């Protein structure tokens, strides 16, 4: 990764805050960022990319769009030379503010049902300028001052339930270390008319600092829920120390330091929600979770991903009226997609509907061992002829030949493949994860009145999956009703034009100078 190739500008319209995604990492979120930037050629975009360490990233995975005019790259875990150690007392007022901030955030977290940290925004506004070198809350003050030590030991005495002080001390140091770097970025960043963060976390905190520093509006779009994903990472990581002895260790209780990290990221999330003018979720379940995590409900909204409708609608011409007896799982062959459940369901389907086929369309190179297991399960069930591993396929080629899109995943957000299937006239059977229920049955109200575009079943239940698929494939009227519902739902709610329309409304408002208005104030758009 070389710094020479990065585009630079003096100012931008929209400054994106990207943590571990576009343009250095490929995936759903990165593609979405690419789609948005290309969808608004009239705006000049810039971005701050926050990565973990330089060695974790290779070359750019995307060609930068022409209206993407500024990019700077920073790494939060990059070991920078700390300032020289020098003992000093520390500023009483600044550390009192710091104590109040921590109290406020703690109170917000422990309050019933979450809630916004009242006053935290004000505190942060007064504290962020103090983070600069030579100011009372500089990195030097954090690392070496006596008051900093007094604060850390006081917190340890009051709250830490793990005996190891040295681990507590370093956990606190390491998790706070990026804050001064973010403050430096916030101070030196080129002017922007508004900021758009694609996650909470460190990017979200940077967004909050920029909102308070510049007074320009901050949009937050969350695809997954950062705090939840961080939690999964942290529970899987083994490097976080757990020093409880055999007898005082309650296995049902997470290790204190993991909990500390989780609370830290939850708190970053709260600070970002508190500073954001609009908070966008992909679908309703996630929006409710944001509110539970402290997002002010009146600032939240859903903007679903949108698909390119004309291109996919054209595929409907290429299919017959009756459903072909083909079930297709479109996705990478990896454990999270639970391909094995799909294969087991195929046994029942083939028993009841001889001639039916199960296709698995997706690359197998990510987890070859898992792919091999899937193949041997298929062989063991005598499905060599009816379950086909197709490798990566273009959806335009296979959707016209498919009767049902199947999704057996144990985790999803808003799977585009369901929407793409609907648009091409293919109903779906999916597990009840992420937004799948919303996509198939619709949200209560007008959406649900459209009808079901297939069926939703429990995860890891091959019998239920097979049963739902057979009901649709063996009853052409029911299948055609589901097909019609899918087409209507995707056309009325999930097109790319609608997504751009919603974001146009958001950007047009966010680009205006809020003239000192508090976050979220003066929203002129719809719900």
């Amino acid at each position, binding site marked *: 990764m070389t710094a020479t190739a990065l585009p630079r500008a003096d100012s931008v319209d929209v400054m994106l805050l990207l943590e571990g995604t576009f343009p250095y990492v490929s995936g759903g979120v990165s593609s979405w960022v690419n789609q948005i930037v290309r969808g608004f050629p009239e705006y000049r975009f810039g971005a701050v990319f926050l990565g973990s360490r330089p060695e974790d990233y290779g070359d750019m995975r995307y060609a930068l769009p022409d209206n993407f005019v500024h990019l700077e790259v920073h790494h939060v875990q990059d070991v920078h030379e700390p300032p020289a*150690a020098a*003992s000093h007392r520390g500023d009483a007022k600044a550390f009192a503010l710091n104590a109040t901030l921590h109290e406020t955030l703690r109170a917000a977290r422990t309050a019933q049902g979450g809630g916004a940290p009242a006053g935290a925004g004000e505190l942060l506004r007064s504290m962020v300028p103090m983070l600069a070198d030579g100011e009372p809350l500089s990195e030097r003050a954090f690392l070496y001052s*006596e008051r900093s*030590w007094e604060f850390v030991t006081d917190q340890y005495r009051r709250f830490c339930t793990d005996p*190891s*002080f040295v681990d507590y001390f370093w956990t606190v140091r390491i998790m706070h270390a990026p804050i001064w770097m973010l403050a430096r970025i916030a101070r030196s960043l080129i002017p922007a008319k508004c900021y758009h963060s694609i996650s909470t976390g460190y990017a979200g905190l940077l967004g909050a600092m920029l909102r308070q520093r510049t007074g320009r509006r901050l949009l937050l779009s969350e695809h997954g829920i950062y705090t939840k994903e961080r939690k999964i990472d942290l529970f899987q990581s083994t490097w976080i120390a757990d020093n409880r002895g055999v007898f005082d260790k309650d296995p049902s209780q997470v290790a204190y330091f993991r909990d500390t990290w989780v609370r830290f990221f939850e708190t970053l999330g709260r600070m970002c929600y508190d500073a954001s003018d609009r908070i966008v979720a992909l679908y309703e379940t996630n929006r409710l979770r944001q509110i539970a995590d402290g997002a002010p409900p009146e600032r939240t909204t859903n903007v679903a991903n949108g698909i390119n409708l004309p291109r996919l609608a054209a595929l409907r011409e290429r299919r017959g009226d009756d459903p072909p007896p083909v079930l297709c799982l479109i996705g990478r062959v990896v454990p999270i997609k639970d391909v094995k459940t799909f294969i087991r369901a195929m046994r029942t389907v083939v028993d009841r509907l001889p001639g039916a086929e199960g296709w698995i369309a997706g690359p197998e190179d990510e987890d070859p061992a898992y792919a091999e297991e899937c193949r041997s399960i298929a062989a063991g069930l005598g499905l060599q002829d009816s379950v086909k591993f197709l490798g990566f396929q273009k959806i335009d080629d296979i959707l016209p030949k498919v009767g049902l899109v199947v999704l057996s995943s144990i985790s999803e957000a808003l799977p585009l493949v369901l929407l793409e299937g609907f648009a091409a006239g293919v109903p779906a059977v999916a597990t009840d994860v992420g937004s799948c229920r919303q996509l198939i049955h619709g949200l209560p109200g007008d959406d649900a009145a459209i009808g079901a575009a297939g069926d939703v079943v429990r995860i890891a239940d091959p019998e239920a999956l097979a049963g739902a698929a057979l009901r649709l494939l063996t009853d052409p009227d029911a299948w055609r009703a589901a097909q019609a519902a899918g087409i209507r739902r995707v056309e009325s709610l999930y097109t790319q034009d609608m997504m751009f329309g919603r974001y146009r409304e958001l950007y047009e408002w966010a680009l205006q100078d809020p003239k000192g208005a508090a976050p979220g104030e003066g929203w002129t758009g719809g719900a």
Partner: protein
Amino acid sequence: MAGIGFELRRLLQRDSLLSLLRAYGFAGVISSGPWVLSIIGMLAIGFMSVGVVVPDALVTQFQVTVTYLIAASLILTGFFQLAFTRFVADRLFERRRDVILSNYHGVLWVVAALSGALGAAAAALLFPEQSIAYRMLGVAGFVLLSLIWIATVFLSGMKQYMTIVWLYLLGYGATVGFAVWLRPHGLEGLLAGFVAGQLLLFSGMQAMIVRDFPSPRFVSFECFHERLRYPTLAWIGLLFNLGVWIDKFVFWAWPPTSQAVIGPLRASIIYDLPVFLAYLSIIPGMAVFLVRIETDFVEHYDGFYGAVRGGGSLQLIERHRNGMVATVRTGLFEMIKIQSIAVLLLFVAGERLLAWLGISDLYLPLLYVQVIAAGLQVLFLSVLTVYFYLDKRRVVLGLCGLFVVANALLTGLSLQLGPQAFGYGFALSLLLCVTVGFVALARSFSRLEYSTFMLQ
């Protein structure tokens, strides 16, 4: 004196008065043995030669020459002693025993070259009227003493405390023997005896070292590498030894209190003898200091850093910190008590002691002050040792610098004030350093966790 704690604790564990006495006796012998033996040896040669070597002035010339050699070699090697001790300790900690001997030889070469060059220059330029034999023996003695101090540091680093004591006993026994044997040859004979004895002492040490510490390389200068050397420790060693001697130099240089003895060497009869006698009174203080530091203090010290590194709670860390403070406090109080007893005994018996040694009782007031000063020097040494444990080398450097300056200025002032103030310069400068050391130590201990975690 790291590592001695195990032996002391073993002796103390038997929990009887006798075992307690043995532990303190052991500590007294290993902490004071070498220099007590050297002082006694020199006094013995003097006593045995008075009346045999004629005129008496030759004996004085011999004693003064050796005193200068000892002072100069201690100050010169002070630059290497602590820094090399630290080098040895670090390599032992890394379990790299094999590199220690070759570096010891490296230091020996450097010290030999340095002391040889300085000694030869001094002999050539400053002693034009003395015999060639005197000058050559002086240079040889200077080089040998310097090498012996380094060998002593090495053996201490290797925890061979009893070996050191036995070798000094043997070496100074032989020195006295050779000197008595060669005294018919006058000043040169006494000096030749001294040099022969020192040569035997150094050879014995070297033989033990080469026998017990095999090394694949003979000589290495790794310890002088920028990465591995400790300039602060070098300056501390130099300043401490300079501080200990500077009041003597001032007395020697001040005409009313001194007389020319041989060549440019001057001595102060009224000052020197009480000083050396007073040093004999600190044996019990040194023993108490060693036992307290190496047993109770080290236990809490290890507990403290063990808890810091091994994930102990802050409460446990603080408990060990308080334990360290308590043992330092107890140790210092015990040393004050035991030194007070030594002072009181001397106040009672001093007059008779001087009479027995054939010294005029005009020396008595100075002896009293010097005994108190020597006791303060033990306290000062123990404060510095605690600081070495805490690895606060800059504070030690500051205290040693203060010691040099205060001792020089206050001793100079005492000379202006007249004979009734003699000795107070040394005593007051130590009192000042001990007081400053105590205050600084209290502050360091109260900030120990903060500085351990936040400033490293």
